[in-house]
């Protein structure tokens, strides 16, 4: 009994990582109707950037965040202004194909620079510390902290989007990118800001993930799929739903892993497909309006 409770709790905690993977993806789709197929690879890129900094300067990976988050935001802004803005239009094909190409380019760039080996960011005892809730039920402090960070990021993003002028401009651009230009706002700049935000979260997600699980140049697509599944399970356009969707995915994977370690990822995918079948709009669809 307690062991199943333990499995479910561990699964819930992993949901924080998936919500962080998903937030940038969801934000970019919400504002630009653009699905960035290289999103998972940018997360891995951030993890490798942190690894390079750690090896070079012998500092804590968490300290790298000070540098990596603004760098990723700048990269996102430039990518949007220089490349992705040119792909936007009625056709879904160009942004998909360009970001798919980027995904392959980043994977092979990382392979070239860091080899195919699995890596992990050194966080010492931080990732193994836990508190005991009940006998036999321990909660890892690190995933708990990540879950709280994910909730804080989503909360901050909501406040930014709904209570600041820039947030209002982003929402207005999302509603109608042509009309917004009549109001004297450059929609290309707004798109750049949205992607910069998305990439800042991806940078955070990459470093936090890198301290907890192994990553390699090829692990980008898996992050993309997990983030995507969290979004669809939670319901499109609902960031809090995405957090819950990530938890559902985490629990499904934890149950699968308990039955057979080989079933972990498969169980998550099957849970996603089952929910897609039963509730195509997700478990927590956003109310109309």
């Amino acid at each position, binding site marked *: 009994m307690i062991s199943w409770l333990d499995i479910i709790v561990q699964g819930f905690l992993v949901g924080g990582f998936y919500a962080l993977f998903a937030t940038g993806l969801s934000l970019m*789709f919400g504002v630009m*109707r*653009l*699905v960035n*197929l290289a999103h998972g690879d940018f997360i891995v890129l951030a993890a490798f950037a942190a690894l390079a900094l750690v090896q070079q300067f012998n500092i804590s990976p968490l300290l790298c965040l000070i540098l990596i988050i603004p760098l990723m935001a700048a990269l996102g802004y430039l990518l949007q202004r220089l*490349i992705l803005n*040119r*792909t936007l239009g009625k056709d*879904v*094909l*160009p*942004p*998909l*194909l*360009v970001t*798919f*190409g*980027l995904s*392959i*380019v980043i994977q*092979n*760039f990382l*392979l*070239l620079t860091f080899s195919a080996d699995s890596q992990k960011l050194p966080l010492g005892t931080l990732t193994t510390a836990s508190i005991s809730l009940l006998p036999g039920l321990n909660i890892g402090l690190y995933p708990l902290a990540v879950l709280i960070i994910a909730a804080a990021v989503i909360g901050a993003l909501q406040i930014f989007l709904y209570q600041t002028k820039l947030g209002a401009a982003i929402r207005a651009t999302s509603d109608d990118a042509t009309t917004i230009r009549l109001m004297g706002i450059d929609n290309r700049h707004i798109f750049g800001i949205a992607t910069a935000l998305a990439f800042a979260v991806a940078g955070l997600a990459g470093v936090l993930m890198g301290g907890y699980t192994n990553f390699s140049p090829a692990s980008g*697509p898996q992050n*993309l*799929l997990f983030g*995507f*599944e969290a979004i*669809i399970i939670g319901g*499109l356009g609902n960031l809090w739903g995405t957090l819950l969707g990530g938890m559902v995915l985490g629990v499904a994977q934890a149950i699968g892993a308990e039955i*057979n370690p*080989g*079933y972990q*990822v*498969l169980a998550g*995918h*099957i849970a*996603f*497909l089952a929910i*897609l*079948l039963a509730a*195509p709009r997700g478990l927590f669809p956003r109310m109309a309006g």
Partner: protein
Amino acid sequence: MSRNFALAYAAILLACAALPLLGDNSTRQLGLEFAATLTLATLWNLLAGYAGVVSIGQQAYVGLGGYLMFALVVFTDMPVLLALPLAGLACGLIAIPAGRLVFRLRGPHFAIGTWVLAEVFRLFFAQISALGGGSGMSLPIMSILAISHSRPDRLLLFYAFAATLALGANLLVFLLLRSRFGLGLTAIRDAEPAAASLGVDVMWLKRIVYIGVAAFTGLTGALIFLQNVRISPDAGFSVNDWTANIIFIVVIGGIGRIEGPLIGCLVFFGFRAAFADFGPWYLIGLGALAILIMLLQPKGIAGLLHRLLARRTARPGFANSKINRAL
């Protein structure tokens, strides 16, 4: 597409088809690979370029076709040449419910959904110990020898099969686009909402194309792994081999153009022969080239050639209108 273009195209295709008949084993093997790649690219172009079904999970059906063929041969002692079409047919049947599921996702989300589906297939086959689990399985040698005892003969047969698939896929697209069905497809490609408003049943067309392409892709996959004699989950459901490369070929050649996949394949095999020794640099170059083409010349090399040819033979009025360029 002009008549001259169609003739030139048919001539190149036939030359590609005839070449390995003259050559040795390695030429036949290369020809086989070329024909199989051209088939997959032609099918993906039909799917994404014409029907607007952007799948990045077609590796699901390459691997599934291969695995089903292996399973039929190993478990029912069926002759390989009978198992081949059955595997393709089974892929089409499986694509019916699978398609129902992924078509619940709209637009760009559909693309990632097809990728999840391919991952489910890969992880599923990795768990079946009767099929070798994660390390995969080989075809029994007796079933290969039953086709022919001579390796050159077998290669020639497989090559002829692959060339037939490539020509068949191209002919299918060509005929399809001249039919009422194809008119609907072309309308979807050019303006989906307008097509729907004129009474084209967009979803139905998309589903039919998805299922047909899945069956054809499965058949091609079965042939690829028959020639390999070995299959594993990572090789069968490889996103790099069966989707990334294929997408790059179609984008470079010209998406939504019937001659695009052929041009893309010629570029791809040339590029590979020249740069494959450079390892990751080779894929970085290929990916960067595809990105540049998508940004600067979205209709690929085929579109560029068309523009150059159209400028030389420019005539006012109907000849250069959209209707003439529809094919």
